[in-house]
C-alpha cells in the first residue's frame, strides 16, 4: 500500500482538504476578524462570560507606547503581544523585573527602550499577518498549573482543542521545551501530547516528529497524565467556538495556576500536527460529526457526543 493510501485509510486530514472542504465551507471570511484580532476575541468571550487571560494595558498608536509601559509599572511580569499575531510570533515575555530592567524567560535582561521598540514594531505591523498596522497589548503572564510543571520547561503549556461544528473532535497539550525557547509550537520543538477527549488523559506524545514517553528536558513521563480541570477546558473551548460562529476552530486553552482554564486565543486555521500527536486522523471524526450533530444540541450534548465519538474511535468503530 502506498504511503498516500495508508494515510487515507487512517483518515489523516491534509492541508488541501482542510482548506478546500472544511475551512472554506464552515469558516466564513466575515467571521475571521473576531479570531484574528485577539483583543476582539477577548471582548467577545468576556461578553459571553468565558474566562480569558486578563489584559493589563493596550497601545493602539505609537504615542500610546509610553503610557502602556507606565501602566505596567506595577507588574513584575507580563507578556506583550500583537493583536494580529500568528503562530506565537511577536510575543515578548517579561518573567521578572528590576526597576527599568526586564528579564526574559531565558535569563536575558533588556531595558525599557527595548520594550518600547518591540511595542512600536508590533504597532507598525511587523508581526501582523498582512503587515497592516496593529495593536500592542500587555497580558498578565500566566503560570503553568502545578500538575503540568513537571513536564514543562521555560514557558506555559496550553491545550489545543479542535472544535468542528461545535463538537470537540481532537485535542492535545503542547509542552514547551528549552529547544522551543518556551514556545508551545510543535514545529519549533515543543512536545505535543494527544489527549483522550472523554477522560482528559494523555495517551501519546511526539517531539520533532518522533514518539516520546518523557519530556526531553525534565525527563518526566508525559503519557497517562490527567489534564487538570478537563471538563472545564472542554466547556470553555466549545462555548468559545460557539461565540465565533466559525465551524472549524482551534481553541487554545491555558490552565493557569491561579485562574484555572482560560481561553488564550482562537484559531480559524488550526494546524494539522494535532493528528501526529494523537496518532490518529481527523477525517473519520469529522465525518461522524457531520452524521450525528443536530442544530438543537446545546454545548453539553455536543461534549457528550464528542466523548462518544472519541470512545468509538479508540475502539476502531469509526470508519
Amino acid at each position: 500500500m502506498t504511503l498516500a493510501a495508508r494515510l487515507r485509510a487512517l483518515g489523516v486530514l491534509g492541508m488541501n482538504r482542510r482548506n478546500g472542504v472544511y475551512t472554506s465551507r464552515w469558516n466564513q471570511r466575515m467571521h475571521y476578524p473576531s479570531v484574528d484580532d485577539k483583543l476582539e476575541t477577548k471582548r467577545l468571550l468576556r461578553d459571553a462570560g468565558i474566562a480569558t487571560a486578563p489584559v493589563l494595558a493596550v497601545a493602539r498608536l505609537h504615542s500610546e507606547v509610553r503610557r502602556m509601559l507606565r501602566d505596567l509599572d506595577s507588574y513584575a511580569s507580563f507578556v506583550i503581544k500583537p493583536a494580529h499575531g500568528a503562530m506565537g510570533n511577536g510575543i515578548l515575555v517579561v518573567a521578572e523585573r528590576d526597576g527599568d530592567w526586564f528579564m526574559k524567560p531565558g535569563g536575558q535582561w533588556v531595558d525599557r527602550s527595548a520594550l518600547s521598540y518591540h511595542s512600536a514594531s508590533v504597532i507598525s505591523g511587523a508581526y501582523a499577518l498582512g503587515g497592516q498596522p496593529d495593536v500592542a497589548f500587555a497580558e498578565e503572564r500566566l503560570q503553568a498549573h502545578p500538575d503540568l510543571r513537571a513536564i514543562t520547561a521555560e514557558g506555559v503549556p496550553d491545550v489545543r482543542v479542535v472544535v468542528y461544528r461545535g463538537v470537540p473532535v481532537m485535542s492535545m497539550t503542547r509542552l514547551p521545551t528549552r529547544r522551543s525557547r518556551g514556545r508551545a509550537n510543535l514545529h519549533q520543538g515543543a512536545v505535543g501530547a494527544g489527549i483522550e477527549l472523554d477522560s482528559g488523559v494523555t495517551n501519546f506524545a511526539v517531539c520533532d516528529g518522533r514518539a516520546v514517553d518523557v519530556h526531553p528536558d525534565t525527563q518526566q513521563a508525559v503519557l497517562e497524565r490527567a489534564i487538570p480541570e478537563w471538563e472545564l477546558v472542554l466547556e470553555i473551548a466549545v462555548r468559545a467556538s460557539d461565540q465565533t460562529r466559525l465551524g472549524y476552530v482551534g481553541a487554545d486553552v491555558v490552565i493557569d495556576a491561579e485562574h484555572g482554564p482560560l481561553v488564550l486565543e482562537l484559531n480559524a486555521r488550526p494546524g494539522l500536527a494535532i493528528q501526529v500527536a494523537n496518532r490518529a486522523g481527523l477525517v473519520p471524526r469529522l465525518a461522524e460529526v457531520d452524521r450525528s450533530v443536530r442544530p438543537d444540541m446545546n454545548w453539553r450534548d455536543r461534549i457528550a457526543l464528542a466523548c462518544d465519538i472519541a470512545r468509538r474511535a479508540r475502539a476502531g468503530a469509526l470508519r
Partner: protein
Amino acid sequence: MNRGAALTGTLLVAIGLSIFAWKTLVLHLPVLPSNVENLWRVELEIDARGSGQRGSVRAALPDSDSQQEIFDERQTNDRLVFTIRTEKGGQRTGVWSGKFDGVHNLSHGFRVQLAEEPLPLPTELRLEPPKDVVDAYLHSSGRFPSDAPEVRELLANLAPPNPSDPLGQMRVLLGYVTDEILTANTGSDDALLTLAAGEGSQVGKARLLVGLLRAAGYPARISAGLRLRADKEAREAIWAEAWVGGTWLALSPSLGFFGARPPDLLLLRTGSSTLVEETGLDALSFRYRVLRESLRADEVASFMVPSNPLLAAISLYRLPVGSQSALRILLVFPIGALIIALIRNIIGVRTFGTFMPLLISLALRELPLTLGLGLVGSVIALGIVSRFLLERLQLLLVPRLGVLLCLVVLAITAQSLLGRTYEVKDLYASVLFPVVIMTMLIERFSITTAEEGLPAAVRRLATSTAAAICVYPIFRIAALEHLMFGFPELVISVMGVLVWIGGYTGYRASELWRFRSLARGREEDAR
C-alpha cells in the same frame, strides 16, 4: 475534488484546447517555431511635430542584396502622404510629406533575413571602376578630405600605393583607423578633427577612412545601418565601403570588420550616414525597434492573415513590435502561475511570498541562471547583513524597510556599474530587478530568522530559490513563448488546470513525509 471545480476546470481546458486544435488541425498553424536563423522584424518609429507648415520626413529604406533580403514592408502615414523614392544608385528613401500639424506618429516596418555566411573576397582586383562610380565616389570633399595634406602625408607614411595588393593596402588603412583612433560617442564627426584628436565618433572614423581610401585611389563611400540584437533597441552603425574588383567591400573602423558585413548588421543606406531627415518641422525623434522572429515568412503570414477573418482580426502578430515584445513575456506568466500552484499545493513547499519566485525569475530571464542567482544572492546577502545591523538602531518598520530598499537600489546600481566597467552587458540589464520584492524578501527572511530560527529561514530561502529555478526556464524557452503568443487561447486551458489544482483535496507530497510517523506507527501497532 468537488464537482463544480471539476466541471469548470474541464470546461475551461476544453475551450482552450478546442480553439487550439481548430487552429492547428484545421487552419494548419505551426505549433512549434521552425528553426529560422537571423530573421528579424524591424520597425522604425518616428514622432514628427510641426506647427502647420508643409514639410517632409525622409527615412532611408533598406534594399535586398546578397546579404539581406527585405520583405513584408508596411508603414503608417498618419494624415500624410507616403511615397518611396529610388535614387539612381538604387538607394530607396521613404518620404512622408504634407502639412505637419501637431504630432504625427509615423512608422515603417519590414522583415529582414540576414545571411549567415560571409561573402568571399573579390579576386578580379585589377578591374577598373566604371565611370559613374569614379565620378561619384573618388573626388575630395569637405566630408571626405582626400586632398588634405595631413591625409596625403598619413597615406604616404602608412601604405604607399601597391597595385598588386590593393586589399593589403586597405587592411593597413583600416587597421590604422581602427586601432590608432579611439571610438568615442562624444568624439567629432569631422574627418580631420578626428585625425588630429586621435579620437572620433563612428561617423568621424568612417569619414576619415573614406578620405584615406579615396586618396589611395579607391572609390569609397559611407554606409549606415543597424546592429540587430534581440529584445534591445537597435544600435546605429556607420561604416565605409570601397569599390574593388567589381564590388563594394565593407570596412568598419568601429565594429572592426573587413569584407562582408557581419551577420547581425542591416544595411539601410549607402552614401550617407543620416538615416532620417526632415524639412519644415519643429521637432523630430525616431527609434528602431527590433524583434527576432521564430517563424518562417510563410508561417508568420499564416498567423497574420489566417484564412478565417475573425482570427485575422485578433491575431497578435499584427500588433506593433513594442506591444508584441511585452505580450510575449506577459502570455508566459500563466504558465509560471501554474508551476507555482503545483509547487505549493501539490508538492507542498513553502516559499517567501506567493508569486515572489515568479517575479525573481522574470527579472533574471535575460541572464544566465548562475550569474543571475549570484547577483540576486549577493544583493540579498548584503541586505540581510544590513538588516541585522539595522536591528540595533531600533527603527520603525516602514522607515527601516525604506532604508533596506535604498540599500538594494545602491547594490543594483553598483552591479550595473561593474557590469559596464567589465563590458558585461548582461549585468547592465539587471537594473530591471524587482527592487520592492527583494526588499520584502530580506525583511521576511530576517523576521523568520528571529521568530523561527535561522535553519527555518534558510530552509525557506532554499525552497524559494528552488521554486525560482523551476520557473526560470519558462521565460527562456523560445518554443513556449511562441506557443503562448501564437495560441493565447491556451491561457484559458491553463486557467482550467488551475481550477483543477484548486479543487484538489488530496495530500501534498510534503505531507506524506510530514505524517510518515503516523502511517508507520499504526503499522507497527498492527504487528
